């Protein structure tokens, strides 16, 4: 290791494992989260590799059917609950929300640490369920399969998800209070970076939605363990009720996964273009609109579930409406680049990649929100492709873009630019090769969660598996150079991208209390013009 330690950096003082495991510093907690979610991303990725290898051939030859079902279930559970939901909020959000507010920490530092422990506890239970033989219900835990038919460790896995849910509730609660109460003097709502707006909206969804899924999953556990009759049709329960409760949370949950990524991209677009975001207030309000309207569309997962066709109508029209704010954001990002001063540093690659993939993800949502078409598409690979474009194409690209952008700030280290660009291209190409064929095979009618499939779908599946290999190589490359950067000197400048924002005015890495003097904010976010004017005047 190097020894050119900058005095007072949060990374150095205090020393020792205990100082990390008991830290109340939001930046250290962010790193704890970053390490844990990376572990889960790798575990989830190994399961994904298993799925794609099995699907190289039409026969189910690599795994037994039961094993395959466990593999895709754990892939989903791990990726959604233990990687993607905490990804941006718990790492970049934890690190940046207080700094962007101009605060020393989150409002409740101890609760922040508690939320990490809850996450670890939940994750351990779920891993325990894996060790004891796995779970096979799919990440959606649909009843009555999950409540009466499956003889796997559903209760334990469900309990893990239940507990992890509290960690996101606490994070959301902490962010909301921080953003309300701890903004620096002069930092009015409409001067806030859009990253804060996005995290505010996400936090609303976290605290309003998560309790519902937590209780729903608990009910499944109660039905399994204690014989409560809630979803079991044999005793008058209603299996479809579960779907309502589940999607009431899980549709908004998809926004927990994408809104923070939208926040990251808003920051990145402005920074790589050195320009005020186009239509700031429209981008800010669209986050809130998405968070709120997103609570009213859950029934679009149930068009063929025996839900009333009139209810379906309402869900369909609201679904189509919620697509509009996403479109507005996309147009505003595009317009921000117009007459910008656009760098071709690695963050730009992630921005472009995000735009391309999120666009396809959002647009294919329109096919699914259209009822007559969803009858054919529901539960096929078309849906699988759609949500991967959104969650991996949008969510994970946003996450990686953010990690690359703020890496110098978080660690004080610089990663190799060329490797960063190659990785972004590999991820983009690999991703499209993996998931685009799934739209085609989905329209052809291949259902999801199939261990074996008719031969005529093979070529498209082989393409998809090939793409997954490229995608995996891209991710591994990123892991390699980011880890390697830790062994390099800490020589990142305070503001490597020449961006605006409070986080770029403090050293890289920041000191424990972030700011030497409490900051006062006198200008709008992304005020490149104002800053240049001041520089000229001085």
């Amino acid at each position, binding site marked *: 290791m190097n020894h050119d330690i900058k005095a007072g950096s949060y990374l150095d003082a205090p020393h020792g494992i205990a100082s990390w495991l008991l830290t109340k510093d939001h930046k250290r907690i962010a790193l704890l989260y970053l390490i844990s979610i990376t572990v889960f991303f790798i575990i989830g990725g190994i399961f994904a590799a298993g799925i794609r290898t099995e699907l190289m051939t039409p026969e189910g030859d690599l795994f037994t059917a039961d094993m395959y*079902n466990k593999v895709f279930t754990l892939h989903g559970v791990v990726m959604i609950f233990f990687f993607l939901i905490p990804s941006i909020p718990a790492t970049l959000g934890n690190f940046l929300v207080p700094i962007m507010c101009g605060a020393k920490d989150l409002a409740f530092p101890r609760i922040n640490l508690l939320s990490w422990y809850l996450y670890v506890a939940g994750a351990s239970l779920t891993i325990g369920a894996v060790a004891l033989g796995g779970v096979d219900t799919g990440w959606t835990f649909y009843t009555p399969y999950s409540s009466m038919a499956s003889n796997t460790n559903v209760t334990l896995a469900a309990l893990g998800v239940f507990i992890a849910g509290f960690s996101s509730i606490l994070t959301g609660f902490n962010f909301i209070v921080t953003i309300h109460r701890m903004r620096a003097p002069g930092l009015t709502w409409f001067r806030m970076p859009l990253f804060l707006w996005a995290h505010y909206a996400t936090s609303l969804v976290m605290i309003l939605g998560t309790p519902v899924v937590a209780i729903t999953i608990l009910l499944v556990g109660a039905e399994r363990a204690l014989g409560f009759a809630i979803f079991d049709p044999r005793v008058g329960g209603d299996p479809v009720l579960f779907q309502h409760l589940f999607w009431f949370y899980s549709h908004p949950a998809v926004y927990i996964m994408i809104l923070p990524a939208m926040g990251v991209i808003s920051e990145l677009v402005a920074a790589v273009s*050195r320009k005020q975001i186009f239509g700031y207030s429209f981008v800010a309000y669209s986050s809130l609109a998405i968070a709120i309207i997103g609570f009213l569309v859950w029934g679009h997962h149930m068009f063929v579930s025996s839900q009333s066709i009139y209810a379906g109508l309402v869900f369909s029209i609201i679904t189509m409406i919620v697509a509009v704010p996403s479109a507005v954001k996309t147009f505003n990002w595009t317009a921000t680049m117009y007459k*910008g*001063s656009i760098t071709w540093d690695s963050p730009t690659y992630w921005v472009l990649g995000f735009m391309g993939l999120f666009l396809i993800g959002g647009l294919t949502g329109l096919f699914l*929100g259209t009822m007559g078409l969803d009858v054919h598409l529901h539960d096929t690979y078309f849906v699988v492709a759609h949500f991967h474009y959104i969650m991996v194409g949008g969510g994970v690209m946003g996450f990686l873009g953010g990690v690359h952008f703020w890496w110098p700030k978080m660690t004080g280290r610089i990663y190799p630019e060329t490797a960063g660009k190659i990785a972004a291209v590999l991820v983009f190409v690999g991703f499209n090769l993996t998931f685009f064929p799934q739209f085609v095979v989905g329209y052809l009618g291949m259902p999801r969660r199939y261990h074996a499939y008719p031969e005529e779908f093979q070529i498209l599946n082989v393409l998809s598996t090939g793409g997954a290999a490229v995608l995996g190589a891209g991710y591994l490359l990123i892991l390699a150079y980011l880890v390697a950067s830790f062994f390099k000197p800490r020589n990142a400048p305070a503001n490597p991208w020449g961006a605006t924002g409070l986080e770029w005015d403090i050293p890289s890495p920041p000191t424990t209390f972030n700011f030497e003097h409490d900051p006062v904010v006198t200008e709008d976010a992304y005020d490149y013009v104002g800053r240049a004017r001041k520089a000229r005047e001085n």
Partner: protein
Amino acid sequence: MQSSFPLFPQAASSIASEVDLLYFFILAVASFFAVLVSVAVVFFAIKFRRRHADEIGHDIHGSIALELIWSIIPFVLAMVMFFWGADLYFRIARPPADAMDVYVVGKQWMWKVQHPEGVREINELHVPLGRPVRITLGSEDVLHDFYIPAFRVKMDAVPGKLTTLWFTATKTGSYHVFCAEYCGTQHSGMIGQVIVMEPHDYEAWLAGGRSTGTAVQNGEKLFTQLACITCHKTDTSGRGPVLTGVFGSTVQLMDGRQVIVDENYLRESVMNPQAKIVLGYQPIMPTFQGTVSEENLLQLIAYIKTLKATTPESPEGGQ
């Protein structure tokens, strides 16, 4: 039946080409926007690339006019999709009155099919060309989903309920049936074939099938065997209501509600009789949950549906 490496599914039902048309419409709109934005983004990134290290972008903050344009145009397009899709969905959801009835029960992990004439098959469904077919779906255990990609229709089979799906096949041949709702170990093995035949071939096939009595005949037998008949008589002397003409009628319940008698109501009356009590009767009907299988239930329902006021005891169908 299909080329060995298809990129687009066959269209073999009356609704399929309509679904495809909507698909192509949305595909065109989506492609337009995808290309528009991608080209703009890449073009801007190149055209406005940074020329020197401390260059900054122009001082542009936004434009209300543009915001309105790019909110309203997508909104209008989304509404076109919505109305088009909703109209199509209603047509997919509502079977024509003259449709022929087939009963399908899903269970881990097979499809059991019962034709009105009594022929049964497993994981195969023979249907005549050009005639609307209405499938009443039940499930014996967990959720399943009866999906025929070539017809662009699917419907969940929900335990504790009956659901329906219909189609008119327009091309002879055989097409995949998939279970599209995850149901456990052999979910991907819960597949079968729909075989669309010329009407006269279908008749011949039916005649050659091992009929075990029509659904209605079987239902009538069950009605006696299960002693329904002791309470439900053809006159009002029984302890239960007369079932003649009950299907499609409106029933007054004890709690003041009214219900229209459909398959799901009949199903519930047998499996969970305490859920809705008919006005003027005691809640004495025993539950048949566990005694009556999902298939028998469909036969009972088929039978009760034929009890018309004019010809109370003459079942339809048969040969």
